[in-house]
């Protein structure tokens, strides 16, 4: 209810809000917290590095610090702060009122926040994950953790990351749908502002890259909790992890850098008073990078026994992907030519970011030469290089903070303080990272280093504190601005072009005084009602031109439109779902010991050989059950809630004009799920080829059972199609019968599966008995979970039909369910031959 939507001063507002600007602020603030968290960890180990072997942390404490510094900065700071900007600004830049799925957006945020809390807790569960942010196998599985009891903290880390990835995936579905379907009239894809462009490509990369990571994390989580063997063997496990991780990991580099690049494009144009040189080529270059980013991952693995041909190929793709960045850098430089450069704080940070990126890029070329890479692998050269690149990105993100601060807060900040911040920041940055190039022979993640390196490491440590201090100046500047800064005008920057500067600072809840449109080539706010009236009068259409726009008047328009279509802005259930997943994951993280106890009773001989010794944990089992209960309740409530997020009536939607928002969302989600299954099936194929394909036969004994299940699922696909037909005809009984049949068929599938598994268990072939068994149980289990989720959805739908005659007037949800169900069936059609026949 927008009418009783609490004000920004109320805490309740921040718990229930689904508005993109609120969620953006939540993201920005939370990301800053994790910047401090990761930064303090970095200061800890920089102190330890003051001299070789100096020790303020335990050995494991040092490893935990470097690992969590990496994880927190890459995942919990960089992407979320960019996400914060995107939440706030992308809808404004494209002329939308909100994201396509506001509740889903709030859910993304809460999953992010709770995943961060879970990381915090992991430090107190016998130590957090200590195997590096790359989590290389097999160090990442419990057999290399001192005791089963001590795995809980590491499990919590992996689960927190899994939760974070789910949050990202929901966010990508949301942004892709929004950007593709909610652009203001007249704004084609080519016309989008560059920050929006960079974010569009970021989320496209995220969609596929994070799906691969999700698969890797799910497999790792089953290894750590259920004690399967994916990453525990010496038969390909290490390489399997490296391949999946870097398939995600390299696009991730661009995922964290692109938003920063987008901010540089925006600020350079504004503060030079010039349009971007070669804009079209810059966009093409970015698209090329986004595509090619999935084809360079093995350059992280040049020393892992891959052959010369593949090395050559990946050397070529690596060099290839550096060239578009050359173009972007020169485009930025030439944009300044003949401009009116104003050295405001955001411009200084952007210019600083460009300079640092040039240095990061040049040192990256060294790594592209394989012979040099051999020697740089695992050294501070790599550390220095990627910090120059990634923290140059941070520099641009700080530029973004200053650039949009007046818009978001409605207050101006003090330029002098901002410039002092930049000076300290820039000195601190270079004092911190440049000496790392000079100390490059030091191996990464060690605190015993060669004599003679000490001076460089001490400089870096001093630099780290200067750099850290500069952020205190920033917080002070922003704090002072909030308390006593002068009010910001709509547009404090001369030559700003994008739409967010055409509305008040901060913008009103519904953003626009009328419907934004670019049909004349220039932003104007259209009063559709007046236009319709004028058209019937035979008069010309009236648009409120920007120059004449009166914001008092705009507000009236706003409320006027409000009566036409009411949009909701509040829901508590996203927070609830975040909490439910959080409790569930806290519980699951502590289950390793219980599973070990279970294995001891199932297969004492195996347990003894593997050295398993666990006790059943009532505490964590209880928490797990509690989490499941909460989750069931909140998901049910989420499903029941009426929440209206109107689609824009008039919008640019290329290339998805003929698909509804939700349907497009489902398609995009399924695309990411394809990658999840692709990675899981890929893992199976990889491990089996590694072992020699015919080393194992099919694990299941009864081919007919698999065949029967194939028929059952195919039949259920047919009943779902019938259900849609029934819903379209408004035939309630028919709809109930067909959905009921689907449910029964799905349950039969699960029944056959249960029988198969128990039959295998009776023969003492368990999921932990060997890699071939792990592959079978986990891959088909992942599919089984999808079936189970489908059954919950079907039950919920039947419940809605019985209680409120749902879907008879609007059959689309049945169609969406059908899409999901067909997808699950298709996956089975692929799994059946792979696991039963080959």
């Amino acid at each position: 209810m927008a009418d009783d939507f609490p004000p920004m001063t109320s805490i309740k507002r921040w718990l229930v809000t689904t508005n993109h600007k609120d969620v953006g602020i939540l993201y920005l603030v939370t990301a800053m917290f994790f910047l401090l968290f990761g930064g303090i960890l970095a200061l800890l180990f920089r102190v330890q590095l003051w001299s070789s072997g100096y020790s303020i942390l335990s050995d494991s404490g040092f490893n935990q610090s470097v690992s969590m510094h990496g994880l927190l900065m890459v995942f919990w700071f960089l992407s979320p702060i960019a996400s914060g900007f995107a939440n706030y600004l992308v809808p404004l830049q494209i002329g939308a009122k909100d994201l396509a799925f506001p509740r889903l957006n709030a859910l993304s945020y809460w999953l992010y926040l709770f995943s961060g809390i879970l990381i915090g807790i992991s430090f107190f569960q016998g130590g957090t994950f200590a195997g590096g942010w790359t989590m290389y196998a097999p160090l990442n599985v419990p057999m290399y953790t001192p005791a089963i009891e001590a795995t809980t903290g590491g499990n919590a880390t992996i689960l927190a990351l899994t939760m974070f990835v789910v949050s990202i995936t929901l966010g990508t579905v949301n942004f892709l749908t929004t950007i593709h379907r909610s652009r203001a009239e007249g704004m084609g894809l080519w016309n989008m502002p560059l920050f929006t462009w960079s974010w569009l490509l970021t989320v496209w990369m995220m969609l596929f890259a994070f799906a691969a990571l999700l698969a890797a994390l799910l497999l790792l989580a089953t290894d750590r909790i259920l004690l399967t063997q994916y990453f525990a063997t010496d038969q390909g496990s290490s390489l399997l992890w490296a391949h999946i991780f870097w398939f995600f990991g390299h696009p991730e580099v661009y995922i964290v850098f692109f938003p920063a690049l987008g901010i540089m494009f925006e600020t350079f144009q504004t503060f030079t008073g010039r349009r971007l040189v070669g804009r079209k080529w810059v966009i093409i270059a970015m698209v090329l990078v986004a595509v090619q980013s999935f084809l360079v991952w093995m350059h992280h693995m040049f020393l892992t026994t891959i052959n010369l041909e593949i090395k050559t190929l990946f050397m070529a793709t690596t060099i290839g992907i550096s060239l578009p960045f050359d173009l972007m850098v020169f485009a930025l430089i030439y944009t300044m030519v003949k401009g009116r450069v104003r050295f405001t704080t955001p411009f200084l940070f952007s210019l600083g970011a460009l300079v640092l990126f040039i240095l990061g890029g040049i040192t990256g070329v060294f790594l592209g030469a394989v012979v040099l890479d051999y020697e740089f692998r695992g050294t501070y050269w790599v550390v220095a290089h990627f910090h120059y690149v990634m923290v140059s990105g941070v520099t641009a993100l700080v530029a973004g903070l200053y650039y949009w601060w007046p818009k978001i807060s409605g207050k101006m900040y003090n330029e002098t303080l901002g410039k002092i911040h930049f000076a300290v920041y820039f000195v601190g940055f270079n004092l911190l990272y440049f000496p790392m190039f000079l100390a490059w022979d030091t191996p990464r993640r060690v605190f015993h280093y060669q004599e003679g390196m000490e001076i460089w490491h001490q400089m870096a440590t001093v630099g780290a504190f200067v750099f850290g201090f500069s952020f205190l100046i920033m917080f002070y500047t922003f704090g002072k601005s909030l308390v006593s800064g002068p009010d910001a005008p709509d547009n404090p920057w001369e030559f700003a072009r994008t739409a967010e500067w055409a509305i008040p600072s901060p913008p009103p809840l519904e953003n626009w005084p009328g419907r934004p449109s670019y049909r004349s080539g220039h932003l104007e706010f259209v009063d559709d009602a007046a236009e319709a009236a004028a058209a019937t009068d035979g008069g010309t259409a009236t648009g409120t031109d920007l120059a004449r726009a009166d914001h008092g008047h705009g507000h009236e328009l706003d409320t006027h439109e409000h009566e036409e279509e009411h949009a909701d802005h509040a829901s508590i259930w996203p927070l609830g779902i975040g909490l439910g997943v959080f409790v569930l994951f806290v519980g699951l993280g502590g289950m390793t010991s219980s599973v070990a106890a279970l294995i001891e009773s199932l297969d004492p001989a195996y347990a003894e050989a593997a050295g398993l010794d666990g006790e059943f944990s009532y505490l964590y089992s209880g928490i797990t059950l509690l989490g499941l209960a909460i989750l069931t309740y909140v998901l049910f409530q989420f499903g029941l809630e009426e929440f209206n997020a109107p689609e824009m009536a008039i919008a640019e939607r290329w290339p998805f004009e003929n698909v509804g928002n939700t349907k497009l969302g489902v398609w995009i989600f399924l695309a990411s799920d394809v990658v999840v299954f692709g990675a899981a099936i890929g893992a199976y194929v990889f491990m089996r080829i590694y072992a020699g394909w015919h080393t194992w036969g099919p694990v299941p004994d009864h081919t007919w059972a698999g065949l029967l299940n194939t028929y059952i699922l195919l039949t259920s696909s047919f009943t779902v199609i019938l259900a849609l037909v029934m819903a379209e005809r408004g035939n309630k009984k028919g709809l109930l019968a067909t959905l009921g049949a689907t449910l029964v068929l799905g349950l039969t599938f699960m029944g056959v599966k249960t029988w198969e598994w128990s039959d295998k268990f009776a023969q003492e072939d368990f999921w932990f008995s060997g890699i071939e068994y792990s592959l079978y149980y986990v891959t088909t289990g992942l599919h089984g979970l999808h079936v189970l989720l489908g059954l919950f959805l079907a039950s919920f739908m039947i419940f809605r039909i019985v209680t409120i005659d749902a879907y008879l007037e609007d059959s689309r949800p049945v169609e969406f369910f059908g899409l999901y169900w067909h997808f699950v069936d298709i996956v089975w059609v692929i799994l059946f031959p792979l696991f039963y026949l080959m």
Partner: protein
Amino acid sequence: MPLQTRAEVFEQIFIIFLGLGTLVGIIVVSYTLYNAYKYRDSEGPTDDEDVPTLGELPTGGKGGKKLFVSFGLSAIIVLGLVLWTYTWLIYVETGPEGDNPGEDALEVDVEGQAFSWTFAYENGVETSSADQGMVVPEDTAIWVNVTSTDVWHAFGIPEQRVKADAIPGESDVTWFATDPLEEGDGDQVVYEDGIECFELCGAGHSNMKSDITVMEEEAFEEWLAEEEAAMEEEEEEDEAEDDANGDEDDDANDEGGDA
């Protein structure tokens, strides 16, 4: 062609990259800052061209030609450099004497385990980071076959510019070549902690180091023979013990073999 060590190959390439990189870096950064300064806002009249306005649909600015010239130049430098290093890559991949270990090469099996290194020589002699570490002859190509018995390590000798990942179940083969000892070195040079682990492998990672000793050819042969004799002696003792104890004490036998 005289035998080029890995260190020499690396230094050559690195120096060129460093020189060119510094030059390009200075030029590009100076040009950037020069432009920023030259075109600073001077409060002058702004009538020379159309300036961006609020709410316009974005278009590109002028100056595309320059952009492509600079881009082309930088592409040529990067491509040229990397292609040039490719010939060196082939050299490093195939080895100093053509394909694979030559007649005079020494082959050593290196095994990483948390948190030490073991070195096995062709005659069955084994040393480890716990005792004298790796021992190699001067002026020789040494081929290492690197693997791991537990987690992922990375074997590296910074002095020799050689590195290989030690991955369980994989064997990573590479080589390095020692220089002749110099006058005054005596018959051996010991590089303390000259071998380091370059992949995070657990709590002891930071200290997973080993000494490496480069010996005079003859001294090395002698050392290897001595070690072999000592090893055989031990084995005989073990056998004798085994005969005395019967077959029951397998564990003791294993321990004896490792010592």
